[in-house]
Protein backbone atom coordinates (compact mmCIF):
# COMPACT_ATOMS: atom_id res chain seq x y z
CA UNK A 1 0.00 0.00 0.00
CA UNK A 2 1.32 3.46 -0.85
CA UNK A 3 2.46 5.09 2.34
CA UNK A 4 0.89 8.45 3.07
CA UNK A 5 2.35 10.27 6.04
CA UNK A 6 3.10 7.62 8.62
CA UNK A 7 2.69 8.96 12.13
CA UNK A 8 4.49 7.59 15.13
CA UNK A 9 5.07 8.97 18.57
CA UNK A 10 7.73 7.51 20.85
CA UNK A 11 6.99 7.77 24.54
CA UNK A 12 9.49 9.00 27.09
CA UNK A 13 9.62 5.49 28.51
CA UNK A 14 12.07 3.53 26.38
CA UNK A 15 12.48 -0.23 26.32
CA UNK A 16 16.08 -0.78 27.28
CA UNK A 17 17.62 -4.21 27.92
CA UNK A 18 18.99 -5.04 31.36
CA UNK A 19 21.87 -7.40 32.16
CA UNK A 20 19.70 -10.48 32.42
CA UNK A 21 17.53 -9.73 29.39
CA UNK A 22 17.57 -12.46 26.76
CA UNK A 23 17.06 -10.69 23.47
CA UNK A 24 15.55 -12.69 20.66
CA UNK A 25 14.66 -11.77 17.11
CA UNK A 26 10.87 -11.36 16.96
CA UNK A 27 8.72 -13.67 14.83
CA UNK A 28 9.05 -12.82 11.17
CA UNK A 29 12.42 -11.12 11.65
CA UNK A 30 15.58 -12.58 10.22
CA UNK A 31 18.98 -11.58 8.94
CA UNK A 32 19.28 -11.88 5.17
CA UNK A 33 21.81 -14.33 3.92
CA UNK A 34 22.20 -13.62 0.24
CA UNK A 35 25.55 -14.32 -1.43
CA UNK A 36 27.50 -11.25 -2.41
CA UNK A 37 25.11 -8.89 -0.62
CA UNK A 38 25.35 -6.80 2.54
CA UNK A 39 23.49 -8.51 5.35
CA UNK A 40 20.37 -6.64 6.45
CA UNK A 41 17.64 -7.28 9.00
CA UNK A 42 14.44 -8.29 7.25
CA UNK A 43 11.23 -7.54 9.13
CA UNK A 44 7.55 -7.62 8.11
CA UNK A 45 7.37 -5.45 4.99
CA UNK A 46 10.62 -3.76 5.91
CA UNK A 47 14.39 -3.77 5.69
CA UNK A 48 16.67 -2.41 8.40
CA UNK A 49 20.21 -1.57 7.37
CA UNK A 50 22.78 -2.41 10.03
CA UNK A 51 26.51 -1.88 10.28
CA UNK A 52 28.78 -4.88 10.88
CA UNK A 53 28.56 -4.83 14.68
CA UNK A 54 24.79 -4.46 14.36
CA UNK A 55 24.54 -7.54 12.17
CA UNK A 56 26.72 -9.40 14.66
CA UNK A 57 24.47 -8.37 17.54
CA UNK A 58 21.20 -9.43 15.94
CA UNK A 59 22.78 -12.66 14.75
CA UNK A 60 23.39 -13.71 18.34
CA UNK A 61 20.00 -12.67 19.70
CA UNK A 62 18.81 -16.23 20.15
CA UNK A 63 16.76 -15.87 23.31
CA UNK A 64 19.39 -17.89 25.22
CA UNK A 65 22.31 -15.51 25.57
CA UNK A 66 21.84 -12.72 28.06
CA UNK A 67 22.49 -9.07 27.24
CA UNK A 68 25.51 -9.25 29.53
CA UNK A 69 26.93 -12.25 27.63
CA UNK A 70 26.36 -10.52 24.30
CA UNK A 71 28.14 -7.37 25.46
CA UNK A 72 31.06 -9.38 26.85
CA UNK A 73 31.34 -11.25 23.56
CA UNK A 74 31.46 -7.99 21.61
CA UNK A 75 33.93 -6.41 24.00
CA UNK A 76 36.22 -9.33 23.32
CA UNK A 77 35.71 -9.18 19.55
CA UNK A 78 36.12 -5.41 19.36
CA UNK A 79 38.97 -5.34 21.87
CA UNK A 80 40.33 -1.96 20.83
CA UNK A 81 37.04 -0.11 21.36
CA UNK A 82 35.94 1.44 24.66
CA UNK A 83 34.03 -1.31 26.54
CA UNK A 84 31.44 1.01 28.05
CA UNK A 85 30.76 2.48 24.64
CA UNK A 86 30.16 -1.02 23.30
CA UNK A 87 27.69 -1.69 26.08
CA UNK A 88 25.86 1.59 25.53
CA UNK A 89 25.65 1.22 21.76
CA UNK A 90 24.50 -2.38 22.02
CA UNK A 91 21.74 -1.29 24.41
CA UNK A 92 20.85 1.60 22.07
CA UNK A 93 20.50 -0.72 19.11
CA UNK A 94 18.43 -3.29 20.99
CA UNK A 95 16.17 -0.55 22.32
CA UNK A 96 15.53 0.80 18.82
CA UNK A 97 14.87 -2.69 17.49
CA UNK A 98 12.54 -3.39 20.43
CA UNK A 99 10.46 -0.36 19.56
CA UNK A 100 10.37 -1.51 15.95
CA UNK A 101 9.17 -4.83 17.30
CA UNK A 102 12.10 -6.59 15.67
CA UNK A 103 13.61 -7.86 18.92
CA UNK A 104 11.86 -9.19 22.01
CA UNK A 105 13.34 -9.31 25.52
Amino acid at each position, binding site marked *: *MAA*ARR*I*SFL*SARMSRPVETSKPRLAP*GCRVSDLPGRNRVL*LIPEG*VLQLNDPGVRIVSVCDGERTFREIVQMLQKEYGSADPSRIERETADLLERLHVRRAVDF
Partner: protein
Amino acid sequence: MNGPLSLIAEITHRCPLHCVYCSNPLVMNGKGDELSTDTWIDIFQQAAAMGVLQLDLTGGEPAARTDLVELVKSARESGLYVNLITSGIGLSEEKLEQLARARLDHVQLSFQDADSGPADEIAGATVHAKKLEIAREIQRYRMGFTVNIVVHRRNLQRLPQMIALAEELGAHKVEIAHVQYYGWAFRNRENLLPTREQLDSSLEVIRGAQARLEGRTRIDYVVPDYYAKFPKACMGGWGRKTMLITPSGEALPCHAAKIVPELRFENVKEGKLQWIWQESDSFRRFRGEAWMPEPCRSCDRRTLDFGGCRCQAFLLTGDSNATDPVCSLAPAHNGVEEMVQRVNALHSSADDGSEAASAKHAPWEYRQNPR
Protein backbone atom coordinates in the same frame (compact mmCIF):
# COMPACT_ATOMS: atom_id res chain seq x y z
CA MET B 1 19.03 3.51 -11.36
CA ASN B 2 19.07 1.16 -8.38
CA GLY B 3 16.87 -1.90 -8.64
CA PRO B 4 13.58 -2.12 -6.77
CA LEU B 5 13.62 -3.08 -3.09
CA SER B 6 10.21 -4.70 -3.22
CA LEU B 7 7.98 -6.60 -5.60
CA ILE B 8 4.19 -6.56 -5.25
CA ALA B 9 2.73 -9.69 -6.85
CA GLU B 10 -1.01 -9.31 -7.52
CA ILE B 11 -1.41 -13.00 -8.23
CA THR B 12 -5.16 -12.79 -8.83
CA HIS B 13 -7.96 -10.22 -8.91
CA ARG B 14 -10.46 -12.80 -7.70
CA CYS B 15 -11.65 -12.18 -4.16
CA PRO B 16 -14.56 -13.40 -2.03
CA LEU B 17 -14.98 -9.92 -0.51
CA HIS B 18 -16.40 -6.78 -2.06
CA CYS B 19 -14.85 -4.10 0.12
CA VAL B 20 -16.03 -0.62 -0.77
CA TYR B 21 -12.54 0.84 -0.35
CA CYS B 22 -10.68 -1.72 -2.43
CA SER B 23 -7.74 -0.16 -4.23
CA ASN B 24 -7.84 -2.70 -7.07
CA PRO B 25 -8.56 -1.12 -10.43
CA LEU B 26 -12.15 -0.95 -11.64
CA VAL B 27 -11.15 -3.03 -14.67
CA MET B 28 -9.63 -6.28 -13.46
CA ASN B 29 -7.95 -9.37 -14.90
CA GLY B 30 -10.11 -12.48 -15.22
CA LYS B 31 -9.01 -15.94 -14.07
CA GLY B 32 -8.24 -16.96 -17.62
CA ASP B 33 -5.63 -14.21 -17.92
CA GLU B 34 -3.72 -15.15 -14.78
CA LEU B 35 -0.05 -16.04 -15.00
CA SER B 36 0.92 -19.66 -14.47
CA THR B 37 2.77 -20.98 -11.44
CA ASP B 38 5.96 -21.40 -13.48
CA THR B 39 5.82 -17.85 -14.75
CA TRP B 40 5.51 -16.48 -11.22
CA ILE B 41 8.39 -18.67 -10.05
CA ASP B 42 10.54 -17.27 -12.84
CA ILE B 43 9.53 -13.73 -11.87
CA PHE B 44 10.56 -14.35 -8.27
CA GLN B 45 13.95 -15.59 -9.42
CA GLN B 46 14.46 -12.58 -11.67
CA ALA B 47 13.41 -10.24 -8.87
CA ALA B 48 15.82 -11.79 -6.39
CA ALA B 49 18.64 -11.56 -8.94
CA MET B 50 17.88 -7.85 -9.34
CA GLY B 51 18.26 -7.28 -5.62
CA VAL B 52 14.60 -7.30 -4.56
CA LEU B 53 14.42 -8.24 -0.89
CA GLN B 54 10.71 -8.04 -0.06
CA LEU B 55 7.82 -9.77 -1.82
CA ASP B 56 4.14 -9.03 -1.17
CA LEU B 57 1.79 -11.79 -2.30
CA THR B 58 -1.52 -10.04 -2.73
CA GLY B 59 -4.46 -9.62 -5.08
CA GLY B 60 -7.57 -9.73 -4.93
CA GLU B 61 -7.31 -12.52 -2.44
CA PRO B 62 -4.06 -14.50 -2.90
CA ALA B 63 -5.53 -17.52 -1.12
CA ALA B 64 -7.92 -17.86 -4.07
CA ARG B 65 -4.99 -19.36 -5.97
CA THR B 66 -4.58 -23.09 -5.46
CA ASP B 67 -0.80 -22.85 -5.98
CA LEU B 68 -0.27 -20.37 -3.12
CA VAL B 69 1.85 -22.72 -1.00
CA GLU B 70 4.07 -23.59 -3.96
CA LEU B 71 4.53 -19.91 -4.76
CA VAL B 72 5.55 -19.14 -1.17
CA LYS B 73 8.00 -22.06 -1.14
CA SER B 74 9.59 -20.98 -4.42
CA ALA B 75 9.77 -17.35 -3.40
CA ARG B 76 11.60 -18.29 -0.21
CA GLU B 77 13.94 -20.55 -2.13
CA SER B 78 14.76 -17.61 -4.39
CA GLY B 79 15.88 -15.68 -1.31
CA LEU B 80 12.90 -13.32 -0.99
CA TYR B 81 11.25 -12.32 2.29
CA VAL B 82 7.62 -13.30 1.81
CA ASN B 83 4.66 -11.25 3.06
CA LEU B 84 1.15 -12.62 2.53
CA ILE B 85 -1.45 -9.85 2.33
CA THR B 86 -4.77 -11.55 2.87
CA SER B 87 -8.37 -11.21 3.99
CA GLY B 88 -8.02 -14.63 5.61
CA ILE B 89 -10.93 -15.94 3.57
CA GLY B 90 -9.66 -18.97 1.68
CA LEU B 91 -7.16 -19.91 4.41
CA SER B 92 -7.67 -22.80 6.80
CA GLU B 93 -5.83 -24.61 9.60
CA GLU B 94 -4.35 -26.99 7.06
CA LYS B 95 -3.33 -24.29 4.62
CA LEU B 96 -1.65 -22.25 7.35
CA GLU B 97 0.35 -25.27 8.40
CA GLN B 98 1.48 -25.79 4.82
CA LEU B 99 2.37 -22.13 4.51
CA ALA B 100 4.39 -22.30 7.73
CA ARG B 101 6.27 -25.33 6.40
CA ALA B 102 6.89 -23.43 3.17
CA ARG B 103 8.56 -20.83 5.44
CA LEU B 104 6.15 -17.94 4.92
CA ASP B 105 7.71 -15.04 6.82
CA HIS B 106 4.77 -12.80 7.59
CA VAL B 107 1.00 -12.63 7.33
CA GLN B 108 -0.89 -9.37 7.15
CA LEU B 109 -4.53 -10.08 7.91
CA SER B 110 -7.21 -7.51 7.20
CA PHE B 111 -10.11 -6.58 9.43
CA GLN B 112 -12.80 -4.15 8.38
CA ASP B 113 -14.04 -3.22 11.87
CA ALA B 114 -14.16 -4.34 15.50
CA ASP B 115 -17.71 -5.63 15.20
CA SER B 116 -19.15 -8.05 12.69
CA GLY B 117 -22.18 -5.90 11.72
CA PRO B 118 -20.30 -2.94 10.29
CA ALA B 119 -17.37 -5.13 9.20
CA ASP B 120 -19.54 -7.36 7.05
CA GLU B 121 -21.37 -4.32 5.67
CA ILE B 122 -18.08 -2.83 4.42
CA ALA B 123 -16.88 -6.17 3.05
CA GLY B 124 -20.21 -6.91 1.39
CA ALA B 125 -19.91 -10.47 2.69
CA THR B 126 -20.19 -12.39 5.98
CA VAL B 127 -16.52 -12.71 6.84
CA HIS B 128 -15.66 -11.19 10.20
CA ALA B 129 -16.16 -14.36 12.26
CA LYS B 130 -14.00 -16.41 9.92
CA LYS B 131 -11.20 -13.83 10.14
CA LEU B 132 -11.21 -14.16 13.93
CA GLU B 133 -10.77 -17.93 13.58
CA ILE B 134 -7.90 -17.53 11.14
CA ALA B 135 -6.23 -14.98 13.41
CA ARG B 136 -6.24 -17.47 16.27
CA GLU B 137 -4.73 -20.14 14.02
CA ILE B 138 -1.94 -17.83 12.86
CA GLN B 139 -0.77 -17.36 16.43
CA ARG B 140 0.19 -21.02 16.62
CA TYR B 141 3.03 -20.41 14.18
CA ARG B 142 6.20 -18.47 14.58
CA MET B 143 5.70 -15.99 11.76
CA GLY B 144 5.22 -12.25 11.64
CA PHE B 145 1.59 -11.27 12.20
CA THR B 146 0.15 -7.89 11.33
CA VAL B 147 -3.46 -6.86 11.61
CA ASN B 148 -4.41 -4.34 8.96
CA ILE B 149 -7.46 -2.18 9.50
CA VAL B 150 -8.61 0.33 6.92
CA VAL B 151 -10.28 3.27 8.61
CA HIS B 152 -12.69 5.90 7.34
CA ARG B 153 -15.59 8.06 8.45
CA ARG B 154 -17.87 5.10 9.09
CA ASN B 155 -15.61 3.22 11.52
CA LEU B 156 -13.19 5.73 13.03
CA GLN B 157 -15.23 6.12 16.17
CA ARG B 158 -14.45 2.48 16.97
CA LEU B 159 -10.69 3.02 16.73
CA PRO B 160 -10.10 2.09 20.41
CA GLN B 161 -12.05 -1.14 19.98
CA MET B 162 -10.20 -1.97 16.78
CA ILE B 163 -6.85 -1.50 18.50
CA ALA B 164 -8.07 -3.64 21.41
CA LEU B 165 -9.11 -6.36 18.96
CA ALA B 166 -5.69 -6.40 17.32
CA GLU B 167 -4.06 -6.58 20.74
CA GLU B 168 -6.33 -9.44 21.81
CA LEU B 169 -5.49 -11.33 18.63
CA GLY B 170 -1.80 -11.11 19.50
CA ALA B 171 -0.76 -9.05 16.48
CA HIS B 172 2.87 -7.93 16.58
CA LYS B 173 2.02 -4.96 14.46
CA VAL B 174 -1.18 -3.10 13.70
CA GLU B 175 -1.37 -1.12 10.53
CA ILE B 176 -4.22 1.36 10.74
CA ALA B 177 -4.52 2.91 7.35
CA HIS B 178 -6.88 5.56 6.13
CA VAL B 179 -8.53 4.83 2.82
CA GLN B 180 -6.60 6.04 -0.17
CA TYR B 181 -8.85 7.15 -2.95
CA TYR B 182 -8.15 4.95 -5.94
CA GLY B 183 -10.18 2.26 -7.64
CA TRP B 184 -13.35 1.41 -5.74
CA ALA B 185 -12.34 3.69 -2.88
CA PHE B 186 -12.47 6.63 -5.26
CA ARG B 187 -16.03 5.71 -6.23
CA ASN B 188 -17.06 5.69 -2.56
CA ARG B 189 -14.98 8.62 -1.40
CA GLU B 190 -17.87 10.88 -0.37
CA ASN B 191 -18.97 8.16 2.07
CA LEU B 192 -15.47 7.45 3.33
CA LEU B 193 -13.59 10.70 3.89
CA PRO B 194 -13.35 11.39 7.62
CA THR B 195 -14.14 14.75 9.19
CA ARG B 196 -11.39 16.94 10.55
CA GLU B 197 -12.67 16.40 14.06
CA GLN B 198 -12.60 12.63 13.66
CA LEU B 199 -9.06 12.82 12.39
CA ASP B 200 -7.91 14.99 15.29
CA SER B 201 -9.52 12.68 17.88
CA SER B 202 -7.99 9.66 16.21
CA LEU B 203 -4.49 11.08 16.56
CA GLU B 204 -5.03 11.28 20.33
CA VAL B 205 -6.18 7.68 20.44
CA ILE B 206 -3.23 6.53 18.36
CA ARG B 207 -0.71 8.46 20.42
CA GLY B 208 -2.04 6.94 23.62
CA ALA B 209 -2.10 3.42 22.23
CA GLN B 210 1.42 3.66 20.80
CA ALA B 211 2.77 4.73 24.17
CA ARG B 212 0.83 2.06 26.04
CA LEU B 213 1.81 -0.75 23.68
CA GLU B 214 5.39 0.22 22.96
CA GLY B 215 7.63 -2.84 22.70
CA ARG B 216 4.63 -5.17 22.59
CA THR B 217 2.56 -4.13 19.63
CA ARG B 218 3.76 -1.68 17.04
CA ILE B 219 1.09 0.67 15.72
CA ASP B 220 1.57 2.32 12.36
CA TYR B 221 -0.93 5.01 11.42
CA VAL B 222 -1.35 6.31 7.90
CA VAL B 223 -3.45 9.48 7.59
CA PRO B 224 -5.37 10.60 4.49
CA ASP B 225 -3.43 12.93 2.26
CA TYR B 226 -6.57 14.97 1.47
CA TYR B 227 -5.92 16.61 4.85
CA ALA B 228 -2.20 17.07 4.36
CA LYS B 229 -0.44 20.27 3.46
CA PHE B 230 1.97 18.47 1.14
CA PRO B 231 1.60 15.25 -0.85
CA LYS B 232 2.90 11.85 0.12
CA ALA B 233 6.04 10.48 -1.48
CA CYS B 234 3.89 8.01 -3.34
CA MET B 235 5.52 4.55 -3.50
CA GLY B 236 8.79 6.30 -2.56
CA GLY B 237 8.71 7.88 -6.00
CA TRP B 238 7.68 6.56 -9.44
CA GLY B 239 9.83 3.58 -10.33
CA ARG B 240 12.23 4.05 -7.43
CA LYS B 241 11.54 1.37 -4.85
CA THR B 242 8.78 -0.93 -6.01
CA MET B 243 7.54 -2.88 -8.98
CA LEU B 244 4.02 -4.29 -9.08
CA ILE B 245 2.95 -7.11 -11.38
CA THR B 246 -0.73 -7.59 -12.20
CA PRO B 247 -2.39 -11.02 -12.49
CA SER B 248 -1.96 -10.94 -16.27
CA GLY B 249 1.71 -9.96 -16.06
CA GLU B 250 1.76 -6.22 -16.61
CA ALA B 251 4.57 -4.49 -14.76
CA LEU B 252 3.42 -1.28 -13.10
CA PRO B 253 5.05 1.19 -10.72
CA CYS B 254 1.97 1.00 -8.49
CA HIS B 255 -1.51 -0.55 -8.27
CA ALA B 256 -3.35 2.37 -9.91
CA ALA B 257 -1.05 3.27 -12.80
CA LYS B 258 -3.19 1.69 -15.53
CA ILE B 259 -5.62 4.60 -15.29
CA VAL B 260 -3.05 6.90 -16.89
CA PRO B 261 -4.14 6.63 -20.53
CA GLU B 262 -1.00 7.73 -22.33
CA LEU B 263 1.19 5.05 -20.70
CA ARG B 264 1.86 1.70 -22.32
CA PHE B 265 3.01 -0.92 -19.81
CA GLU B 266 5.27 -3.89 -20.49
CA ASN B 267 4.34 -7.49 -19.83
CA VAL B 268 6.69 -9.84 -17.99
CA LYS B 269 5.89 -12.54 -20.54
CA GLU B 270 7.56 -10.41 -23.19
CA GLY B 271 10.45 -8.73 -21.42
CA LYS B 272 12.90 -9.24 -18.61
CA LEU B 273 12.21 -7.52 -15.29
CA GLN B 274 15.61 -5.85 -15.35
CA TRP B 275 14.96 -4.27 -18.74
CA ILE B 276 11.42 -3.24 -17.81
CA TRP B 277 12.68 -1.56 -14.64
CA GLN B 278 15.69 0.21 -16.15
CA GLU B 279 14.73 0.97 -19.72
CA SER B 280 11.01 0.85 -20.38
CA ASP B 281 9.23 4.13 -21.18
CA SER B 282 6.56 3.53 -18.56
CA PHE B 283 9.04 3.16 -15.72
CA ARG B 284 11.16 6.06 -16.90
CA ARG B 285 8.23 8.37 -17.55
CA PHE B 286 8.08 10.11 -14.16
CA ARG B 287 11.58 9.47 -12.85
CA GLY B 288 13.80 12.45 -12.21
CA GLU B 289 12.56 16.03 -12.49
CA ALA B 290 12.34 16.76 -16.20
CA TRP B 291 8.62 15.96 -16.31
CA MET B 292 7.72 18.27 -13.42
CA PRO B 293 5.63 21.38 -13.98
CA GLU B 294 5.87 24.41 -11.75
CA PRO B 295 5.56 24.76 -8.81
CA CYS B 296 7.14 21.29 -8.37
CA ARG B 297 10.13 21.92 -10.56
CA SER B 298 11.53 24.70 -8.33
CA CYS B 299 10.08 23.40 -5.07
CA ASP B 300 12.43 22.53 -2.19
CA ARG B 301 10.28 19.49 -1.40
CA ARG B 302 10.63 17.86 -4.80
CA THR B 303 13.30 15.48 -3.53
CA LEU B 304 11.11 14.57 -0.54
CA ASP B 305 7.76 13.88 -2.18
CA PHE B 306 8.79 13.55 -5.84
CA GLY B 307 5.85 15.73 -6.86
CA GLY B 308 3.27 13.51 -5.14
CA CYS B 309 1.07 10.92 -6.82
CA ARG B 310 0.69 10.82 -10.63
CA CYS B 311 -2.37 8.62 -10.51
CA GLN B 312 -4.07 10.96 -8.07
CA ALA B 313 -3.15 13.93 -10.27
CA PHE B 314 -4.77 12.16 -13.20
CA LEU B 315 -7.85 11.10 -11.21
CA LEU B 316 -8.50 14.60 -9.96
CA THR B 317 -7.38 16.78 -12.86
CA GLY B 318 -7.27 14.58 -15.97
CA ASP B 319 -3.55 15.37 -16.32
CA SER B 320 -0.96 12.89 -15.03
CA ASN B 321 1.68 15.63 -15.16
CA ALA B 322 -0.13 18.02 -12.84
CA THR B 323 0.97 18.85 -9.34
CA ASP B 324 -0.77 16.41 -7.01
CA PRO B 325 -3.92 18.35 -6.04
CA VAL B 326 -3.63 17.41 -2.36
CA CYS B 327 -0.63 19.72 -2.22
CA SER B 328 -1.54 23.12 -0.79
CA LEU B 329 0.59 24.65 -3.55
CA ALA B 330 -1.17 22.85 -6.39
CA PRO B 331 -3.19 24.89 -8.87
CA ALA B 332 -5.99 22.32 -8.57
CA HIS B 333 -5.92 22.24 -4.78
CA ASN B 334 -9.26 24.01 -4.38
CA GLY B 335 -11.06 20.92 -5.72
CA VAL B 336 -9.71 18.86 -2.81
CA GLU B 337 -10.46 21.70 -0.37
CA GLU B 338 -14.06 21.91 -1.60
CA MET B 339 -14.63 18.22 -1.05
CA VAL B 340 -13.10 18.35 2.42
CA GLN B 341 -15.28 21.32 3.35
CA ARG B 342 -18.40 19.69 1.93
CA VAL B 343 -17.84 16.50 3.92
CA ASN B 344 -17.16 18.47 7.13
CA ALA B 345 -20.25 20.61 6.67
CA LEU B 346 -22.50 17.65 5.99
CA HIS B 347 -21.34 15.24 8.66
CA SER B 348 -20.91 15.82 12.36
CA SER B 349 -17.91 14.19 13.96
CA ALA B 350 -20.01 11.59 15.72
CA ASP B 351 -21.15 9.30 12.97
CA ASP B 352 -22.91 7.22 15.55
CA GLY B 353 -24.24 4.64 13.14
CA SER B 354 -27.77 5.81 13.82
CA GLU B 355 -30.52 5.83 11.22
CA ALA B 356 -30.21 9.59 10.91
CA ALA B 357 -26.47 9.38 10.34
CA SER B 358 -26.84 6.52 7.88
CA ALA B 359 -29.46 8.43 5.95
CA LYS B 360 -26.86 11.00 4.94
CA HIS B 361 -24.78 8.38 3.13
CA ALA B 362 -25.18 7.41 -0.48
CA PRO B 363 -25.51 3.70 -1.19
CA TRP B 364 -22.20 1.85 -1.36
CA GLU B 365 -20.68 0.79 -4.65
CA TYR B 366 -19.38 -2.67 -3.86
CA ARG B 367 -16.27 -4.08 -5.50
CA GLN B 368 -17.17 -6.46 -8.29
CA ASN B 369 -15.32 -9.65 -9.10
CA PRO B 370 -13.57 -9.81 -12.46
CA ARG B 371 -15.61 -11.43 -15.24
